[in-house]
């Protein structure tokens, strides 16, 4: 592999890793803080992509579509949390898995009803459509770099929110001791609704910003969901730090896997997971099991 | 004195920077009732968890008879003959009392990886289970679902399950926790009976009970052993009184 190819694959890994991180962080936050496994999380990613495609048809601008689309996804997340997820808080994981599985079925079918089963594409905005030269004859798309930068800023923003704001403190408190937070007069249900909507928005945004690269197609939600699960499991449930490292590892495994062992590319991701679990069954930064 | 049945050598457990148990070196003589007392947070339950294998030690060794049991898993330790009852009732609530003791008794068979015989036909298991049920006073409640019993009865079952595993050494974590006087007296009497044939190590806050049945007492404070001695020694020890009274002053 030439240096240029290696560099390109590395940059691709990072970019993919960042997108994965956005989706996985929502998943791990929702589980870590609310104790809910949400299988339908991938649906937010999918809806994000479809909504941005749909809005693009009217606005002709990716930026405007995203700005309009993110609130829409947040509303969707909020509605789902209030109507369905809120009933799962005290229940066994099995029921959470099943209920959110039912949600996937519904949401996937809704997507087909609204927008059909075709593949759609969203063009890269003109401003970002150029390429950066890497070597004399290799270039790298500006848009992919843009995605990485935006995700990095979002990640930093999330860190600040969780660690440095009152809302973040309330969220962290609610994760440790729900009843206590309620006893302090804080409406924990609203906190959870906000956390869930934020997680949904993150996943939706990932779908939107990634749409020009990945295209928009049915089943994209299911795909990213499974990979996000792997990321969360590798990183340790409830750990944002773990989600980040896990996402980067998977980004590397997937991207280089496709180049080095194309026939077994998909398996590279799961092999990575198996190796890590062999070493640490609770994930890299998860709570140890005794 | 005869060989101690259990010896700990500088046993310690820390969680990050927190030292829950430190430098605990104790000897437990066979056939005796050895109580461990101390203020909350003294490390008593952590110590029991170390002895029963629920927590791996950070430092030190544990020796049971001629086995080094440091870091052994709870199931292996149970198989060696150390039984455990829990402070927070840890039974099978959906099973009947008999089924609870049954499973405990079945553990004494060489292996339960048997797929083709009917479990309930194993008479040796049945005998053990029934004996345990009667010893802990629940003979009449054989088919009652555990969840439907009173708290005190559930604590009795907790002890019964432990007995069904026919242990030599009993680790009892606050067996009297949350009990009224009458119930407590029944359990104290049960412990007296058990003390005739087993070695008991017990954590308790109920001082009357401790002074009534213990042969030796160890006082723990802040994860370390403050003093070990006979009931008289501990009762009259200025250091122990200071440890307890001193703590009360701080709380006030």
């Amino acid at each position, binding site marked *: 592999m030439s240096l240029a190819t290696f560099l390109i694959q590395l940059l691709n890994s990072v970019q993919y890793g960042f997108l994965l991180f956005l989706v996985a962080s929502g998943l791990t936050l929702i589980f870590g803080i609310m104790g809910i*496994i949400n299988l339908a999380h991938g649906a937010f990613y999918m809806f994000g992509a479809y909504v941005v495609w749909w809005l693009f048809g009217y606005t002709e601008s990716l930026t405007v579509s995203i700005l309009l689309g993110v609130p829409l996804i947040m509303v969707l997340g909020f509605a789902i949390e209030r109507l*369905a997820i809120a*009933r799962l808080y*005290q229940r066994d*994981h*099995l*029921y959470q*898995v*099943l*209920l959110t*599985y*039912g949600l996937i*079925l*519904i*949401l*996937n*079918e809704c997507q*087909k009803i609204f927008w059909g089963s075709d593949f759609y594409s969203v063009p890269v905005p003109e401003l970002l459509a150029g390429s950066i030269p890497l070597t004399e004859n290799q270039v790298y798309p500006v848009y992919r770099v843009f995605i990485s930068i935006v995700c990095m800023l979002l990640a930093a923003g999330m860190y600040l929110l969780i660690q440095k704001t009152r809302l973040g403190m309330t969220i962290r408190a609610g994760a440790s001791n729900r009843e206590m937070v309620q006893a302090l007069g804080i409406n924990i249900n609203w906190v959870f609704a906000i956390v869930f909507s934020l997680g949904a928005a993150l996943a939706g945004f990932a779908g939107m910003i990634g749409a020009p690269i990945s295209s928009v197609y049915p089943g994209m939600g*299911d795909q990213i969901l*499974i990979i996000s*699960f*792997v990321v*969360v*499991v590798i990183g340790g*449930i409830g750990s944002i730090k773990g989600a980040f490292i896990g996402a980067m590892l998977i980004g590397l495994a997937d991207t280089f896997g496709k180049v080095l062992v194309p026939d077994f590319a998909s*398996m590279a991701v*799961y092999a990575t997971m198996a190796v890590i*679990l*062999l070493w640490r*069954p*609770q*994930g890299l930064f*998860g709570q140890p099991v005794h | 004195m005869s060989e101690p049945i259990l010896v700990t050598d500088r046993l310690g457990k820390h969680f990050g920077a927190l030292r829950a148990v430190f430098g605990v070196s104790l000897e437990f003589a066979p056939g005796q009732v050895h109580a461990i007392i101390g203020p909350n947070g003294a490390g008593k339950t952590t110590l029991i968890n170390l002895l*029963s294998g*629920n927590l791996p030690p950070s430092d030190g060794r544990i020796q049971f008879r001629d086995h080094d049991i440091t870091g052994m*898993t*709870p*199931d292996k330790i*149970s*198989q060696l003959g150390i039984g455990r009852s*829990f402070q927070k009732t*840890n039974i099978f*609530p*959906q*099973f009947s009392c008999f089924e609870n003791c049954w*499973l*405990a008794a*079945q*553990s004494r068979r060489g292996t*339960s*990886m*048997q*797929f*083709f*015989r*009917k*479990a*309930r036909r*194993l008479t040796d298991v049945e005998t053990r289970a029934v004996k345990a049920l009667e010893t802990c006073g629940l003979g009449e409640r054989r088919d009652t679902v555990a969840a439907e019993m009173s708290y005190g009865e559930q604590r009795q079952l907790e002890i019964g*399950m432990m007995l069904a595993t026919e242990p030599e050494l009993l680790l009892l974590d606050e067996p009297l926790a949350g009990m009224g006087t009458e119930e407590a007296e029944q359990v104290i009497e049960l412990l007296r009976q058990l003390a005739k044939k087993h070695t008991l190590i017990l954590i308790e806050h109920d001082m009357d009970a401790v002074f009534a049945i213990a042969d030796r007492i160890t006082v723990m404070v802040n994860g370390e052993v403050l003093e070990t001695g006979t009931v008289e020694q501990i009762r009259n020890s200025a250091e122990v009184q200071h440890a307890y009274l001193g703590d009360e002053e701080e709380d006030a």
Partner: protein
Amino acid sequence: MFRTSLYTNLALVAAIIVLATLPPFLGIYYGNLVTRLMILGIFAMSLDLLIGFTGLVSFGHAAFFGLSGYLLGIIMMDTESASLYWVLPACLAGTALASVVIGWFSVRTTGIYFIMITLAFAQMLFFFFNENVALGGSDGLFIFNKPTLAIGSWNPLDLEDHHTFYYVTLVSMVLSYLGLRQLLNAPFGQVIQGIRANENRTRALGFATQRYKLVSFVIAGTLAGFAGFLEAMHTSIISPAHLGWHESGTAMMTVILGGMGTLHGPVFGAFALGYLHDWLQDVTKYPTLYMGIFVIAVVLFLPRGIAGLPADIGRLLRRKSPAETEEEEP
């Protein structure tokens, strides 16, 4: 602990008699449907062993269902004829081996990790077959030649005949049920039920719980493989979808719908869900949508499934929450 009332036993015998006398009244289509439902019943029972009796919520159980079918397809790929007497054991052995490997990794984890890891392993197998051109890729394999029970020129049962296959499946289902019952009443079965009820305590009593969980996982996986073998023999097709998480999700659904931890409940769940699926496909353009709504409704309103209906009605009348009911669940 596992126990069935006289009423339940009678109902089961009646159900078997009904199934045994049904074929003359069913056309080919419904005959095949019921055969498929019985196969799903075996699959569901194997999952109930894990979820309902050992407390292991596996979201990747379809991996074993599909793997067995693929093993059959691979063995028969370039073979004109083969004897079932070695093909079936071979497929089961392969599936058992896979479940040992996957189980060994998975059983080291608990709770939500276990759910996710079993899902991920199943996906791994899914992608392996989906991207493997030699094995038909996403289209899967068509099994032209199937093994027979023939010894020399004598063929005791013609498995190509739909009627015969129906009865073979029925007998398989009954034997699977009886076998699992036997297992649950054996010392092994007592331990795994203890693990489900309180794993911590079971370990403290002296049982090496990891080993028991692994053995349970392997037994369940192999039985699922048996169901998958029957399915592949029946339809002559095996595709990656058989390993997919929708198949696993549907299986979990049948266990919950039927009543987990009852053993017979999931079979009823398989019939109910299978029939519902079949009906929805005729009646609407969006069967998945209604299936999803149905799944959610069952989770919210019928947590103990069909088998627990009498108890659930009682709960509704007394107005307890589903969470409280779960605490009482055996």
